[in-house]
């Protein structure tokens, strides 16, 4: 059961289809793990449906209906698309259809893997894997950072974030996360702008992962 959710406006942008692809991937991952937010997105889609009914119709050209009817191909009565398997597992190299790069060592206890999101021009999408008890360097953002926890948990100023939780952070939020003891923590992150580490360790990491 998720306890930390994306901002309402982030879910609304997702449901509207205006959220960039990298952040959409993080939200889709959270939704797969959070029935509450799925319900809200479904309600927003109902809002879209209600607005679609109320909109002033704009007539199509003459004969458009007949032309489309001519194009209707007989359909095989295929069953529904099969449900996808688990969204993510440690031994898989894809996430919701996106290819994952190899895990790379960043610093003691910290690994990083890129997520191949071709259209994520203004955001970087990656996974982080951190050892139990690890203190991540304190950092600030110049843009937004959207995180979904896939396994384990971390704790920072905003509380404890466990599997399924989403951290929808603005540029003015400062973070110094600590990984929960007992289990390694895997997160999916979409980050816009730059990350600014405030510690020496952080500045050492920075060029390495090009954050």
């Amino acid at each position, binding site marked *: 059961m998720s306890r930390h959710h994306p901002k309402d406006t982030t879910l609304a942008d997702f449901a509207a*289809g205006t959220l960039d692809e990298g952040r959409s991937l993080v939200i889709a991952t959270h939704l*797969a793990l959070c029935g509450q937010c799925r*319900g809200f997105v479904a309600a927003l889609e109902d809002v879209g*449906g209600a607005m679609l009914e109320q909109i002033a119709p704009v007539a199509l050209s003459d004969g458009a209906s007949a032309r489309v009817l001519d194009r209707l191909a007989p359909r095989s009565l295929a069953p529904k698309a099969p449900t996808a398997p688990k969204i993510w597992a440690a031994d898989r190299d894809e996430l919701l259809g996106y290819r994952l790069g190899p895990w790379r060592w960043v610093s003691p206890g910290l690994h990083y893997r890129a997520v191949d999101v071709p259209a994520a021009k203004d955001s970087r999408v990656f996974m982080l894997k951190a050892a139990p008890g690890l203190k991540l360097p304190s950092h600030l953002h110049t843009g937004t950072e959207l995180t979904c926890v896939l396994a384990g948990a971390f704790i920072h100023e905003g509380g404890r974030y466990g599997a399924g939780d989403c951290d929808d952070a603005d540029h003015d939020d400062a973070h110094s996360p600590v990984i929960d003891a007992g289990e390694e923590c895997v997160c999916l992150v979409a980050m816009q702008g730059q990350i600014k580490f405030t510690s020496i360790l952080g500045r050492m990491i920075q060029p390495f992962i090009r954050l």
Partner: protein
Amino acid sequence: MPTVVKGAKSSADLAALIEAVAADQDRAAFAALFDYFAPRIKGFLIRGNTPPAAAEELAQEAMLTVWRKAAQFDRNRAGASAWIFTIARNLRIDVARRDQRARLLDLEVEDDLEQPAPPDALLLAVERESRVQAALQALSDDQMRVVRLSFFEGKPHADIANELELPLGTVKSRIRLAMNRMRELLGDLT
């Protein structure tokens, strides 16, 4: 079997038409859906700044998708209009970016962490629709306007600020308050 209802408007009628397309490849039902939704989808796309000629093409494309995917419609999960809105929205994303984002909104994934809700706990789409209608009534006119522009028409905040002649900060906070209100009123729906 459901028969074609000319000028159908009720949610149940529209759902029955989609189900007729799904079950029987009912062309008359499809034609009725086309007459009702294609001009609305065209209007939707034009509002979102798609040029009219492209909107005309895309509206037809959306209706072909309705034909192809009709079997995926489930009236217990989504209202007919909401389902067709998602098709039009996904098409708008495809066109805007030619990327895979639309696919993310269309995913059916298995819950990893949660037990599925027992059937009696699932709120029927029709109940959700009426809750949504009530929630929309609860928004102020100003809030409704920004929700329509930003959520439905997909316009950037800066364009909305221009259109409404409001400071950008006002637009952002108004959208935020409207969405917080929606979440308050609808957040318990799962």
